């Protein structure tokens, strides 16, 4: 069974809707991603974050749903646009914010930065900033799970633009041949950096239309519908865990902001932006929950809890000292050193 979505006709979830508990967790997570990343935007403008950031504003439903559906010991592999995916695995906000600010209390003590968020203890196996590189790497984790019969699944997120790099095709074939326990999730936000994916791709749906080339089901879903995404996540994770092999999911979505902090996003038609702003995943979900009888005060409480938590995390991060030069020469090698000669 495949689900398709053409803009303007939202898909309905195919299976039973998730439990209320799950739905409230999804709502909370999406709000957390939204408020956190808006704060990242603010602190960037205040000069507290240098370099670059790539936000997932507008794309929250996808990582939130997978984060909620994954087993604790499953693995996430994400891109430079990975704040949301990291938070979705339950990594606390303060060390992420501190990492963006380049502080000692950062997730990697300031050595990685925004584009490389990693927290192995949470199964967040890295954010990779060379387009396509992490698809083959995620395969390796899946291969190890299969070899050790651990039941773990690797979930690998990437963008539409990534479907045109060789590593994508090598990885899909490799995963299919060995029926690896992996889910490839293409977050199709219609643009690579500044170029529309349709302008540079031979097929309309860059991931879904290529699934058949690897013997995989064509899965095209509404990435702005958290229920659809949760159902898709559950189904694809289950398939991987039960030994049936990989899935390639194309989730349609749209980023509210530019590609990165340097980008005002002027290349996107106003009309298109306006239409997609109407399809905000959090607004849609809030309205749905309310219409299904969830009390507004329950959602209001979540909103204010999250706002408080983001404010606290930001202050904790700001209070963290700079990393300290002692870290510079550490941890090139497994003995903790960077010694290359005697």
């Amino acid at each position: 069974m495949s689900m398709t979505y053409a803009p303007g006709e939202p898909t309905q979830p195919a299976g039973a809707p998730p439990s209320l508990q799950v739905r409230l967790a999804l709502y909370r997570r999406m709000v957390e991603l939204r408020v956190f990343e808006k704060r990242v935007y603010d602190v960037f403008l205040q000069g507290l974050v240098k370099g670059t950031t790539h936000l997932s504003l507008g794309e929250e439903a996808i990582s939130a749903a997978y984060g909620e559906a994954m087993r604790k010991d499953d693995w996430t592999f994400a891109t430079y646009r990975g704040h949301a995916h990291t938070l979705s695995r339950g990594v606390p906000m303060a060390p992420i914010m501190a990492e963006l600010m380049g502080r000692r209390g950062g997730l990697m003590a300031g050595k990685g930065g925004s584009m490389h968020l990693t927290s192995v203890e949470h199964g967040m196996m890295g954010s990779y900033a060379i387009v396509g590189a992490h698809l083959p790497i995620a395969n390796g984790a899946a291969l190890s799970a299969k070899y050790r019969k651990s039941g773990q699944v690797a979930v690998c997120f990437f963008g539409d633009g990534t479907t045109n790099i060789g590593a994508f095709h090598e990885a899909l074939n490799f995963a299919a041949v060995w029926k690896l326990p992996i889910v490839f999730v293409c977050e199709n936000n219609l643009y690579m950096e500044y170029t529309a994916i349709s302008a540079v791709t031979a097929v309309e749906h860059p991931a879904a239309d290529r699934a058949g080339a690897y013997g995989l089901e064509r899965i095209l879903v509404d990435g702005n519908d958290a229920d659809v995404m949760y159902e898709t996540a559950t189904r694809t994770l289950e398939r991987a865990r039960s030994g049936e092999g990989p899935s390639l999911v194309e989730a349609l979505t749209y980023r509210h902001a530019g590609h990165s902090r340097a980008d005002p996003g002027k290349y996107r038609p106003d009309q298109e932006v306006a239409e997609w702003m109407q399809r905000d995943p959090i607004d849609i979900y809030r309205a749905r929950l309310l219409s299904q009888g969830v009390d507004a005060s329950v959602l209001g409480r979540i909103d204010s809890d999250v706002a408080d938590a983001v404010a606290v995390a930001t202050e904790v991060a700001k209070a963290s000292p700079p990393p300290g030069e002692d870290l510079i020469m550490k941890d090139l090698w497994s003995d903790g050193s960077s010694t290359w000669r005697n």
Partner: protein
Amino acid sequence: MAELSLREAVGRAIAQEMRRDPNVVFMGEDVAAAGGVFKSTVGLLEEFGPERVIDTPISEQAILGAIMGASMTGLRPIAEIMYSDFFAVCWDLVVNQMAKTRYMTNGQVSLPLVMKTGNGGGLRFGAQHSQSIENWAMAVPGIKVVMPSTPRDLIGLFAASVRDDDPVIFLEQKALYASKGEVEDGEIVEPLGKAAIRRQGGDATIVTIGTMVPRALEAADRLHQEEGISCTVIDLRTLIPLDAACVLDMVSATGRLFTVEENPRVLGWGAEIASIVADEIFYDLDGPLVRIATPYIPLPAAGELEDKTIPSVDAIVETIRKRMG
């Protein structure tokens, strides 16, 4: 004790480590059922089965990605990149991923993996199957670089590479596959970062590695017989970590340094050695530091041309004789 070729040593080295540790798996193109294009991995599939000895598609990025992800999550994988030239199509995985991940993650991720590959020239294969990538590899902080010159060292250094918790590029010199050496029975492990002094002499120190080791030794014998020049020959065995102390000791004692390098000259490892020596023991030197290397060209295929590009015994003898004169 047995006499083994370097080619046979490869199979024995992999088997030694796979028998010892069930987390060791091995993958590459044509390595399992066919036993490898160099026939160095014959019999491994039969002994260890298809879950541990894996034939892959021609997907170098997928191969290196797979061993990286597997090594992050509990395995100690080995991959073969058939010819080292092919690293050019998957170098991102080496340079940007494997080499940087531990550092970027503040030590969260360990990558105990080995990339073994057929390296170097001398077989008339032409420029795209004769590359010496030791300098590329050495230029990337975070990758260990190993190049054995004898069958025994191959086994011992391979074992250490598999047991090491960091990513290793393991260079098997194709020109040495047929060369033979005595290898004792039982487990062999040699430490990384320790050079071997293959010959001792008082007049000059030759620092070399890989295919150039037997050539340097033959040249040293001839220099002794023909010119009365007596040379120490150091086989570095690993470029990262580098046994600089051994080089400094021997060059201090002899007062002269010659490097013999198969790689193209510009920014070859010998330049790093020469710079260390010039910087740290300049006043122990009795003459210029001299590098003998392949020139700055792609390798030509025809034997007559290739033999004139890669340092030969004649070229080594001639250069040292002239520069010591």
